């Protein structure tokens, strides 16, 4: 569905992404993991032309991004930002209606209103539909933004840290909604995530970024290892496995300073997990249930 090859991106002189390549299959949820500043958001924004990579290519449905007009792309890809500027008091309904922009002229058809209504319903926003967005809580705004992306009727959803401002129940609701959409409509979703456990629970594939490099990629169980988490996040963690899902239990900050991690050997090659598995330095052996 989306494949990127040897992607490089830099802001002015600061290089953010270096030689990142991977593929997202149709019907798949892929999570981008990595600490702040590792390039998750930047990578996500390269998928729908918000940012333009200096080198490398992005292909959506086999077509290079350069050949797809912005409007056509907006019918293919919906985007949910991490935090949204709210300048003027639009109603919830009007905000979700913006998602129909790629599909309509000045006038709306009943069809468009039906879709907006259905999107509001699927994110449990119907009772708020005539409230102003400025009056809503952070979690409600997040759901409005997701509803707007759904109103685009896209085949691909990009979500930038969709759960970071939500309470426990809404985190699960949003993830279940996204997972449900992906499975029922055979959509594809790419998420930048901070919550390792939600990522492990809901993702088909995880891509871990480390200082702009693709550190490793694959099934949650193979990517979320003690060694990887120590190297990428600088955190000692234990990994549990229960009912087929992986759980990360962070213990403490690793001894090495985060800045000193750069000389760890990194593995930019995708899907070559064997090279980066296991601890990078001799550590007192600790049992994990992995």
């Amino acid at each position, binding site marked *: 569905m989306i494949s990127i090859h040897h992607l490089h991106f830099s802001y002015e002189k600061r290089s953010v992404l270096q030689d990142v390549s991977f593929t997202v299959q149709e019907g798949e949820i892929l999570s981008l993991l990595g600490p702040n500043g590792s390039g998750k958001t930047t990578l996500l924004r390269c998928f729908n032309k918000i940012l333009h990579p200096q080198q490398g290519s992005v292909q959506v449905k086999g077509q290079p991004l350069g050949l797809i007009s*912005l409007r056509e792309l907006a019918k293919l890809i919906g985007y949910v930002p991490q935090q949204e500027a709210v300048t*003027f008091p639009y109603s919830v309904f009007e905000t979700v209606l*913006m998602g129909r922009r790629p599909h309509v002229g000045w006038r709306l058809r009943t069809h468009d209103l039906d879709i907006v209504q259905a999107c509001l319903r699927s994110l449990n926003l119907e009772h708020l*539909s005539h409230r102003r967005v400025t009056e809503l809580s952070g979690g409600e705004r997040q759901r409005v933004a997701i509803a707007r992306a759904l109103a*685009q009727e896209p085949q691909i959803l990009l979500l930038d840290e969709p759960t970071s401002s939500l309470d426990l129940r809404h985190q699960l609701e949003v993830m279940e909604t996204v997972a449900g959409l992906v499975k029922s409509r055979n959509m594809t979703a790419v998420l930048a995530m901070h919550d390792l456990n939600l990522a492990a629970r809901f993702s088909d594939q995880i891509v871990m970024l480390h200082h702009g490099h693709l550190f490793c990629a694959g099934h949650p169980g193979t990517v979320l290892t003690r060694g990887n988490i120590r190297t990428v996040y600088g955190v000692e963690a234990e990994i549990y496995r229960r009912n087929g899902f992986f759980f990360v239990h962070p213990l403490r900050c690793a001894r090495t300073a985060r800045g000193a991690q750069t000389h760890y050997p990194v593995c930019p090659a995708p899907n070559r997990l064997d090279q980066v598995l296991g601890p990078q330095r001799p550590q007192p052996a600790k049992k994990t249930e992995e």
Partner: protein
Amino acid sequence: MSTPKRAAAAVVGPIPYREVWRGKIIRFVALLVILLALTILAATMGSAAIGLQDILAMPLGRLADPRAAAKIHILWNIRLPRVVFGLVGGFGLAIAGTVMQAVLRNALASSYTLGVSSAAGFGAALAIGLGLGIWGGKFLIVGNAFIFGLLSMALVYGIATLKGARAGTLILAGIAISYLFSALIALVKYLVQHDVLAGIVFWLLGGLHLATWETVTLLLPIVILPSLWLLLKFPWDLNALSAGDEVATSLGVHPERTRILALILAALITSGIVAFAGVIGFICLVGPHMARLIIGSDHRYLLPYAGLTGAILLLAADTVGRTIIQPTELPVGIVTALLGAPFFLHLLLRSQGYWE
């Protein structure tokens, strides 16, 4: 395609949006009624007494009566152009203000923010004070103000192409340019004689006394054509831009391209009006907010509603200005702020959740 459509309709049931839409239509009709009443009122008010019956009698052409002929002359050649000028000017100023606030994502944006007003003022001051101008003759001041208004926009545009047309960059560049031209105005004021200074000050206060059919026909295309373009082609894009550049891109809008084009159109409208009527700052700042408080933020409705609100504001202010202390006129810029500010504060205090 028909299956999902039917399924969605079955689930959704009655659409509350229809009721909202009806509410908006009612508000539009109410505003149009006010506009019409105000227009008639403005045409009948003034130092020469012309009643409604005179207006109604006008098309019947009782030219035989010399008193009636004089009344028709005043009405047709003095008051009506001024009324039309007020309507068109207010309409354009408010639409330009709405557009600037939307694309700059700033509730305080107005023709001052991008330096258009100050630059036009400087152009006029140059013409009045030093007789310097691009065109000579009757349109020396007007032409100068117009050209300088557009020049400020070109400066902002140049900075945007060098640094990227992000909203923050444009606002800061515009404010810098605004200060630059304000300083230049002060310089011209400082250099000229007392009597010329009075002329500059009077021009800067703004007023519709220049309104004749000739100026109205010059102004009309400058205001109406860009306004129509903005009204018909931009509402969805302005909505998308208010949600941020990233979201706008994801909705298929080129943020920087759209922003620059919309600003140029807004600057064109503003320059045209400011050139003829002087600096009338209040309407392009507050007209959009008043409209937003009443009709909501969706630009498909907001743009025309703001335009009509602006038309009412300017016409009302001008009518009050020219009748309240007859036969002297108060500059319209003073009246708009004196009457509009309390009304706006009232709306603001009464509404909830408008500001975060």
